[in-house]
């Protein structure tokens, strides 16, 4: 671990990293646009220029070099001394900020980036309040560059992060700089819109408001949003995300740095995969079938009704004719609570891992980002829990085959899938079950035969952990309250198991850890400070 001196302060840093990264890691706020730890270094914005001590050509004596060096392109060396707090560096930053603001429109009040914009922050911290520019501003056009993204090139500072992203991380290379001099602008190649499956990241990468997300455009001001740490349910890799929300619901999803899974990026599936939360058709009250069809039931009565119906259908005995289908969309805590309760009620009940949605094949990008074909977050976690309980277990296809033969009198099916999942075969097999309890987000073909229908909550309305495809256990927090009339899955299972009070995933996880030691510890990636984007 080399030690370097920044502004007179001794700093221990990792070997081979740029000085800028060492300074950012040490909590210093150094202005920079083009540098991003996930991309190659181009040293084009010149904002991170610093003074460095170099040996004098004749006397070999160490002294401050008259030239300024880019901190992002200078690797750390043992004993080196640099400074950012000198008048020379500050003057250079002031000049650069004036240059960046020459043609920049003064439209912060209507710009979606305002509040999290680096140009705004740096202009305030390192720039001056007035502009000496008297000529007409150069105004570059606004462009629609893809199905999800807009480019307002008048706001662009040409850091080229987006270009490096599409060249290095996705390898698709749709973007480039066109024209020359002050008419320099970013554009996509003709007939090549920005539509790769990771393209949403360019909006987060953009340090100013040049690249904008169409689905978030004009929707909210960023300072009105609250942020919750979550894990995306879009695929089995468990990409960590921030959910930005306020009282009107979710507004956008941003990547959360995770050194072991998705680094700085997320796939578009994860980014835009929250619209099902606001779909009109969502179930919003529990219903129980009596002589005149499915009728609304109160949540308080539900556990009692459920137990009664189970008893009449299964009679006394071990409950070998009962199947519990656990969905890979459930969190580990929910699956454990429900499986434990059902096994206590009916020790011979069959535990089944439900339908695992798989779309296409895994896709790996040049720098190693993987989009999984398995479009559910917790297949492995539910498998672990089923394995832990042992006894009668079955696979989804075997269960369907046995159900068609009428082996099961009762079945509790947990769904929670974001897309439609009930095929004709599934509906036909489950129609043979006498007492069908369906716990799902949306109405489906199962409603025709379901005896009890329970609405479930989406992942943003619940808390718990997902175990990703590599066995990494990551917690997610509740962002928004459940839809009116819906009880969060964990809370319902908690009450079903006879507990009272508020369901907290952490509390349940501690109970689980007694039986399943791997749940004693969860992986939470380190927080990256705001200035070190």
């Amino acid at each position: 671990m080399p030690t370097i001196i920044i502004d007179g302060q001794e700093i221990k840093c990792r070997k081979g990293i740029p000085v800028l990264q060492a300074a950012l890691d040490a909590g210093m706020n150094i202005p920079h646009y083009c540098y991003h730890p996930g991309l190659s270094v181009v040293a084009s914005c010149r904002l991170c220029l610093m003074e460095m001590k170099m040996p004098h050509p004749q006397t070999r004596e160490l002294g401050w070099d008259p030239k300024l060096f880019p901190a992002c392109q200078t690797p750390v060396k043992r004993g080196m001394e640099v400074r950012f707090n000198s008048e020379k560096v500050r003057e250079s930053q002031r000049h650069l900020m004036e240059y960046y603001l020459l043609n920049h429109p003064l439209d912060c009040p209507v710009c979606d980036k305002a509040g999290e914009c680096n140009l705004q922050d740096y202009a305030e911290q390192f720039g001056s309040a007035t502009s000496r520019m008297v000529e007409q501003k150069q105004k570059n056009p606004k462009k629609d560059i893809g199905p999800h993204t807009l480019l307002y090139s008048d706001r662009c500072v040409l850091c080229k992060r987006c270009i490096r992203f599409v060249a290095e991380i996705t390898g698709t290379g749709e973007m480039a700089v066109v024209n020359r001099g002050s008419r320099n602008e970013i554009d996509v190649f003709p007939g090549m819109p920005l539509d790769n499956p990771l393209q949403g990241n360019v909006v987060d990468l953009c340090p100013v408001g040049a690249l904008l997300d169409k689905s978030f455009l004009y929707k909210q001001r960023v300072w009105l949003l609250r942020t919750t740490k979550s894990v995306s349910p879009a695929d089995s890799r468990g990409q960590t995300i921030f959910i930005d929300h306020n009282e009107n619901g979710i507004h956008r999803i941003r990547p959360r740095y995770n050194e072991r899974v998705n680094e700085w990026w997320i796939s578009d599936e994860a980014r835009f995969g929250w619209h099902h939360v606001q779909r009109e058709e969502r179930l919003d009250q529990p219903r129980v079938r009596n002589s005149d069809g499915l009728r609304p039931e109160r949540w308080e009565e539900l556990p009692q009704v459920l137990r009664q119906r189970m008893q009449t259908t299964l009679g006394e005995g071990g409950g070998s004719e009962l199947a519990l289908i656990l969905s890979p969309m459930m969190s580990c805590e929910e699956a454990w609570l429900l499986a434990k309760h059902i096994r206590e009620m009916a020790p011979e009940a069959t535990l089944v891992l439900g339908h695992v949605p798989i779309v296409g094949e895994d896709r790996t990008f040049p720098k190693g980002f993987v989009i999984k074909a398995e479009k559910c977050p917790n297949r492995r976690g539910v498998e672990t829990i089923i394995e832990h309980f042992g006894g009668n277990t079955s696979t989804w296809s075997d269960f369907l085959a046995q159900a068609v033969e009428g082996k099961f009198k009762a079945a509790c099916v947990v769904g929670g899938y974001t897309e439609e999942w009930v095929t004709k075969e599934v509906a036909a097999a489950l129609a043979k079950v006498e007492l069908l309890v369906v716990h799902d987000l949306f109405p489906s073909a199962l409603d025709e035969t379901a005896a009890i229908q329970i609405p479930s909550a989406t992942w943003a309305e619940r808390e718990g952990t997902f175990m990703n495809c590599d066995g990494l256990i990551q917690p997610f927090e509740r962002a928004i309250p459940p839809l009116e009339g819906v009880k969060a899955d964990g809370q319902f299972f908690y009450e079903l198991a006879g507990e009272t009070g508020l369901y907290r995933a952490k509390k349940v996880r501690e109970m689980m850890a007694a039986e399943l030691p791997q749940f004693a510890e969860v992986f939470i990636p380190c927080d990256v400070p705001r200035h070190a984007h």
Partner: protein
Amino acid sequence: MRDEDVIELREPELSAAERLYLPQIWDGVKCTVRHMFSIKLRNETVRQYPEDSRDTRGEVRVANYRGVHRLNKDPDGRVACVACLMCATACPVNCIHIEAGESPWPDREKYPVKFDIDELRCIYCGMCEEACPVDAIELTPQHDLVGRTRDEMIFDKEKLLHIYEETKALKPRKNPAITGYG
């Protein structure tokens, strides 16, 4: 939901005197009776409205009186608001609800699709007027607003623009600050 978001509430225990309720009732009646029979207090606090109002006494200063809001129009007759939500951010009681959308005009990016002010919730502090970068929202000298339902007192964009038409003779729009390509 973080740990700090969870608040456990318990009903406070009432003492024997509080459970009786009579001491509180006695205190209330005492206050009412005191005001009923004190002529000095009555003359100090009672005004004969509307015969004797601030308007007739000439106490309303048009330039800075903080009454009902209005939404100004620009010289082309369009709503001047650019839907930046600065007023909603500055509002200490969250009574301004704006839904922004892409503007139909080429010289402007955003405009308010919906602009509702809950006049019952508003405390008429004038922060919205201070925050507005284009001087679109202003408080007028109008103070006698009435309505029969709560819904009627939620003023929408049309109503706020209408108030501008009503009051622009009395209080013309100031020169707006420059934003955009200035």
